[in-house]
């Protein structure tokens, strides 16, 4: 019998899973996202940018944790503003914050199940979805272990498991590869590619190589604004021999940032 995921309960008639126009988001008093235009559909989108570029603030806004201060933000066809009922949108979201909080006494399975409950998943679908999410991140052997006993990499994988338990239509991962060893990173890239087949996945990272290897689309922001959006090949094509970086993709990234900074108003 096929189980129904929460993601399937949200409408799929929207042209973009994520659509921002002139989006402004504050991080405290500071406007961290300032007039961002962005459209994301199905696929894996790598979000790159230097420290303080507004990546985490953007992801928090997309996760509906921060309210937009201006502009328009549409998630899964639903306009997100101060008056919106976000409950339906949130059922279709998966989110791994940069600082992943968890209940240390819970086991992995219990925590993922708890998150499935918070995501209002259909009761009958929960056990299967929990097991599937844990299997996908390779934590089946640790499903019964308490969260507090997990290593940093395992915790990150548990965080991804809770994010994907509801088969989200929009999956937001903020620095998901922190703490993963090289082998786990390779597995993670595989998982990302798999998730991106049906969902809109936005991965914030500093690791350009991960983006090139796993993403179908690259989004670069700086000072809260969109610098570049295109395929990994586009990114590679932007770099030249004189740009900083150990790989063509890193050189492309450096070149785009350099040009943006040069053209940005002082």
């Amino acid at each position, binding site marked *: 019998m096929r189980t129904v995921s929460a993601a399937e309960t949200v409408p799929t008639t929207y042209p973009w899973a994520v659509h921002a126009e002139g989006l402004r988001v504050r991080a405290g008093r500071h406007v961290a996202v300032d007039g961002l235009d962005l459209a994301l559909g199905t696929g894996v989108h790598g979000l790159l940018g230097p420290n303080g570029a507004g990546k985490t603030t953007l992801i928090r806004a997309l996760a*509906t944790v921060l309210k937009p201060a201006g502009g328009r933000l549409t998630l899964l066809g639903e306009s997100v503003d101060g008056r919106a009922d976000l409950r339906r*949108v949130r059922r279709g*979201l998966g989110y791994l*914050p940069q*600082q992943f*909080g968890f209940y240390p006494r819970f086991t992995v399975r219990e925590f993922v199940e708890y*998150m499935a409950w918070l995501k209002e998943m259909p009761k009958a679908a929960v056990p299967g979805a929990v097991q599937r999410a844990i299997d996908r991140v390779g934590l089946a052997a640790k499903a019964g272990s308490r969260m507090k006993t997990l290593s940093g990499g395992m915790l990150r994988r548990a965080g991804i498991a809770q994010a994907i338990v509801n088969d989200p239509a929009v999956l937001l991962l903020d620095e998901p590869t922190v703490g993963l060893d090289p082998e786990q990173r390779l597995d993670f890239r595989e998982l990302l590619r798999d998730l991106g087949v049906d969902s809109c996945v936005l991965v914030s990272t500093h690791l350009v190589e991960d983006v090139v290897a796993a993403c179908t689309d690259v989004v670069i922001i700086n000072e809260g604004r969109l610098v570049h959006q295109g395929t990994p090949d586009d990114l590679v094509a932007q770099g030249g021999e004189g740009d900083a970086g150990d790989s063509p993709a890193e050189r492309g990234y450096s070149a785009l940032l350099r040009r943006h900074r040069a053209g940005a108003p002082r």
Partner: protein
Amino acid sequence: MNRILGIELRRSAAPGSALVLLVVGVLLLFFAEGIAFATGWMQLAMTQRLYLALLWPLALAAGAWQARREHRSNVTELFASTPRPRAQRTVPTLGAMAVAVVCAYLAMGVAGGLWIIGTAEYLPASVFVVTAVGALALIAAAWLGLAIGRLLPRLVTAPALAVAGLALLLLIPGATRPRGWLALVFSPIYEMNMPGAYSTVPGRASVAQAAWLAALAGGAVLLFASSGWRVRVAALLPVVAGAALAVAVMPHQSRFVTDAIDPVARELVCAADEPPVCVSRVHSGLLSEVIPPAREGLAILAKLPGAPTRVHEDTTTYVPEGYPPWHEDVVLLEIEAGPNGHLLDADTAVTDVVAGAFASPPGCEKSAGLAERLAAAYWLIGREPVAGEANDPEDIAKAVELWRSLRQLPDDEAKARVAALRRAAVTCSVGEELTSSGTR
């Protein structure tokens, strides 16, 4: 929801809280002041309520400790991205803490109940009401702790709340004096100390307390589940409404519980066979222990002319003052359960029955002294008076002196003097019957 409640019951502060409450509760029950609940189920229920003095602050602290979890675990952001409203998110936590404190309280009752189950037979419905109010008090405390702990998620909140809760319970009686009934409304422990054999908690007191505690719990839930200041202010409404209702329901009289007597507990229940031996219903479990010494005592007394033929429990109460009906053919016997639930002073029961035959009606000013009664009783029994725990050594010394003087007399003379004492006692005209032959 059930699975999530199960997870919370296993992984939250609930199991630890239950364990602490249970251990502290059982220790208090058995070791704080000796075993004060051996008489019966109502005494157990009231003693449990008394020990809320410590359990209530502990539940408050447990709630505050649990409330820190979300703050400590840094899950606020993650949970904020999920669709389930905060009010619903709080339900498993509230449920787990409520289940924990109620289970601990009931288990404490079971521990006490196992101690008295062989001897306590009278189980009025009000026992369940008194226990339910106690459990409700703990739920309110745990939930209030959750609410305050959420508002003030500091390490110091839980211990500070425990101290504040204890201080509150201890200060309420003084703060509400001379309106003792106000203390009864707001303190679940007030007037629960040293319950007598026929004590009870009137239904109106329980209803008023339940109204207050339910309102307090309701306000705490609103506060805990709130996500804005409006709801937090609105949380005061049920508390104020509950307090007003409780004040209206509670009779405005002092010592409302202390002076309450359960008439059914005080009713006599009697042995089926002759001679009649009756005890109060609350002591019905002790009847089989009372019958042998009572009948032995009656047999000894049968030597006297007009000897009593029945033994009834002395159901006199001093607060409020109340006496059993007076009959010349009845010996009134004070019955008390010992710490083990069985008849206290069973070894002196025969003497007590025989000496009881020389008691006078209530209000009599010319009654026989203890020494005279003991001397007469021991003469009938045929051995020298011995000191009992409750007896004044001077009374014993005088009883021995009188007993010896009786022994030196011819049997007929001694018996006549003892019979005269009995007649004088029941007619409230005691003089020098044991030491003088001229009064017969």
